[in-house]
């Protein structure tokens, strides 16, 4: 850890040398370790110290961006000078409203010392518990356990000076038998929250319960989706629909539908980077405080997230969802929530006459027909047939191809409990998802295992 004072002072000092009209510096750096295992042995065990410092220089409405991973003064000066040189050769961006001004940032506790100091030996000792439990049942384990700390800072010449230290830990476990597998994972900022043995037991039980899976013909089934499965659907819906770029370009399923009912009345989806029950983070990469933003409220399309450039284009305020200065992807929601209900996975299974229980999905893709939020993907690591309110047996994996506008209009039950599910943006966000019972979910293909 470099520390707040040194990072802010160094960036501030670099900006003082800038000839640009406005300049911004973003620091992302830290130390992280990851212990990866397969066949019940550690096969990859890594640690890195790294940083990335971006400079965004504005000459009028001409913007240049350059980055370096060196925090040495001369390298920072070179990167800044590259950014200014690029800006000089740029075309004007009419949507650039200027860099954001200073705003009050919420104070959040996002750093846990034990997570930051968790050693490779400690990680090895934790994963060994998984191997020992799997061995009892003649099963093998694969997965990873990561721990690390990082620092993020944003400084600009209009007075923004934000800093946040972070820790995070994530474990995923796939337990494999002769013809079945089971999965469990856990995400937290605090390594003390991780109960490795309990997670191993969940993955082992799923593997044992789905042994000798039977083939099932594709078709429409009622599905009980566990939170990890629901989160992976939402992750793709976010990518194709909840950001400013697809919305403004007309490819989002929310484009031209704001104010219209697009899902069931029991569906509310929002982003809230300030909610400390999840992986909270208080500001975006322009130093703008994160606002809570609703995408779907009681089934009605409400809006999308913005950064300062996309907000200026739509004549609204930034919601605090800018990505790093080099990105052209517009704003993106990083702290997604689906509102919980009053049910549970057990109740959902009990109320299902014939259907499927899905642990998680694999390799989802949502680019086929984005305006209808059509996704496809496979089931994985524990898919079960439910008959007359009880789990009957494991089934071979199936491919779904389904519009999420239809699927989220057919949600019969939502669990009260919600889970933090790891996503593409790990350290600064996640998806908080409940389990769901969806009616008539369409499976279009099957595989051989």
């Amino acid at each position, binding site marked *: 850890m470099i520390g707040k004072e040194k990072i802010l002072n160094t960036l501030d000092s670099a900006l003082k040398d800038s000839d640009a009209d406005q300049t911004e510096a973003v620091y992302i750096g830290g130390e*992280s*370790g*990851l212990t990866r*295992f*397969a*066949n019940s042995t*550690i096969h*990859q*065990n*890594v*640690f*890195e*110290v*790294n940083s990335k410092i971006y400079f965004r220089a504005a000459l009028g409405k001409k913007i240049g*961006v*350059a*980055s*370096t*991973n*060196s925090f040495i003064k001369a390298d920072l000066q070179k990167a800044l000078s*590259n950014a200014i040189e*690029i800006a000089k*050769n*740029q*075309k004007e*961006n009419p949507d650039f409203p200027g860099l954001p001004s200073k705003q009050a940032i919420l104070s959040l506790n996002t750093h846990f010392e034990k997570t930051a100091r968790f*050693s*490779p030996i400690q*990680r*090895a000792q934790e994963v060994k518990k998984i191997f020992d439990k799997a061995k009892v049942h003649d099963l*093998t384990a*694969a997965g*990873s356990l*990561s721990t690390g700390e990082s620092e993020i800072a944003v400084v600009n010449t209009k007075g923004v000076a934000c800093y946040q230290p972070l820790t995070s830990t994530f474990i995923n476990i*796939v337990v494999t038998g002769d013809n079945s*597998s089971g999965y469990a994972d856990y995400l937290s900022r605090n390594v003390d929250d991780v109960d490795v043995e309990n997670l191993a037991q969940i993955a082992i039980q799923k593997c044992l319960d789905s042994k000798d899976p039977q083939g099932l013909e594709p078709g429409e089934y009622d599905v009980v989706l566990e939170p990890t499965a629901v989160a992976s659907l939402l992750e793709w819906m976010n990518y194709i629909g909840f950001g400013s770029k697809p919305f403004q*370009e*007309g*490819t989002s399923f929310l484009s*031209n539908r704001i104010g219209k009912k697009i899902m069931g009345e029991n569906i509310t989806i929002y982003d809230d980077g300030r909610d400390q029950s999840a992986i909270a983070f208080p500001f975006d990469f322009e130093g703008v405080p994160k606002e809570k933003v609703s995408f779907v409220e009681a089934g009605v399309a409400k809006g999308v997230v913005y950064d300062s450039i996309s907000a200026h284009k739509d004549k609204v305020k930034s919601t605090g969802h800018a990505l790093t200065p080099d990105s*052209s992807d517009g704003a993106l929601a990083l702290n997604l929530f689906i509102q919980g209900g009053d049910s549970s996975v057990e109740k959902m299974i009990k109320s299902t006459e014939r259907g499927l229980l899905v642990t998680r999905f*694999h*390799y989802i*893709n*949502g*680019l*086929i027909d*984005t*305006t209808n939020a059509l996704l*496809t*993907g*496979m089931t*994985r690591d524990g898919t079960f047939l439910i008959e007359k309110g009880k789990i009957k047996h494991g089934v071979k*994996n199936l491919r779904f*191809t389904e519009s999420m506008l239809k699927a989220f209009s057919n949600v019969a039950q939502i669990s009260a409990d919600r889970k933090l599910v790891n996503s593409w943006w790990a350290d600064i966000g996640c998806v908080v998802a409940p389990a769901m019972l969806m009616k008539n979910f369409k499976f*279009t*293909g099957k*595989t*051989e*295992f």
Partner: protein
Amino acid sequence: MEDRINETIDYLKKKKVDYADVRHQKTCGEDIKVKNGNVDALSRNDNQGFGIRVIAQGAWGFAASSICTEEEMKRVADQAIQIAKASALTKRENVKLTETEIHKDKYQSQYSIDPFAVAIDKKIGLLLDACEIMAKNQKIKVAEGSMEFFRTDKTFASTEGAYVEQSILESGAGIYATAVDGSEAQRRSYPNSHGGDYASRGYEFVEEMRLLDNAERIREEAVQLLSADPLPEMETTIIISGNQMALQVHESCGHPTELDRVLGTEISLAGGSFLTTDKLNKLKYGSEKVTITADATLPGGLGSFGYDDEGIKAQRVDLVRDGLFVGYQTSRETALVLNQRSNGTMRADGWNRIPLIRMTNINLEPGEWERDDLMKDTKSGLLLDINKSWSIDDKRLNFQFGVEAAWEIKDGKLGKIYKNAVYTGITPQFWNSCDAVCNRKHWHIWGVPNCGKGEPMQVMHVAHGTSPTRFRNVKVGVSK
């Protein structure tokens, strides 16, 4: 840097590790994106650091840092040893590596025009001109273009005495037209989607693309797709264009022949492979028309290099020969399982990552057909062009791929266009239905700059040489 690398190797030898290597890498990247007449992003990225990989007490450890001082290199060396000792807590047997030739060499990829020396104005200008052409239809809501350039200088040294320096230059570009009408949106790309096409070449590669010559065509096709019917569900003959064949080879042959994946080391992320070792030299992977190679020696391929990140010289090997599954992509550790030597496919996407088995240029070798003859020979079917979506199960069997456009083929001629087209199959059944591959005249090495694998995630540059290819009895149009 050479002195510091050699000192670190000496330091590791004194620590009596079983094996160690040091890899220093410096990358400079430039990214240009234009959209609707404006420059959407223009950035330059400098990145350098080193990683140290160690086998100590019979187990692997790896540590990396962006601070390239002598003291930091020794600290990181010690840390890598400590991590290896932690790994040893759970080892079942000692890590062993195959014997290999020890190389001291230099490699430089070939190019004519250094893209970093080309004026930014010129590069932006080309993309803006293409956008202007694409925007000449009001239905085109987004006209975009992109270019990306990378220069990577890396040095590999090992306790076995290897010392290899490589300098690789890469260029890529593409243009994209998105047409929107109400709640309908359709996109066409050229020369490929997801960033265009890439090669280990200079700016001459971009100039040869003829972006301006294709802007009008993709504009009109995107608009045409807005009013097209969705592809109906049926079983039919399909001809897949070279760019989509690249994705087909990537997902259904490239990944499943990675031997580390086969041996289970990727199960927790993208899964395993159906090509288990008992199938080697036995499984009829495809028809006799199908020969697939892994060739890191192809000039200009995005998966080409001089040496992999274990210091193994670049090679060309067969994966599928005349339909028979005959080989894997291997590393020094995994090749031992087959009593073979590594065929040199271990690469890391940066100094801060360990090398994994990564695709090189994985190619469907050209057949004998002229493209026009293949079309004429097809009585009824579809022509599928440019990837739009991709999904495959965790053993690489059940796939469903979507394309930007599908055209009906009737009596050897192109007919109506369909939107939102997908096709699906089970990998070996699908490849066994291949009955024609176009010849070398129609063969192109497609650069794929975004292949994900590993934890932490690594994004690798790979490529696929392919030409238009025909398959029989394929299920299509199952998206709704």
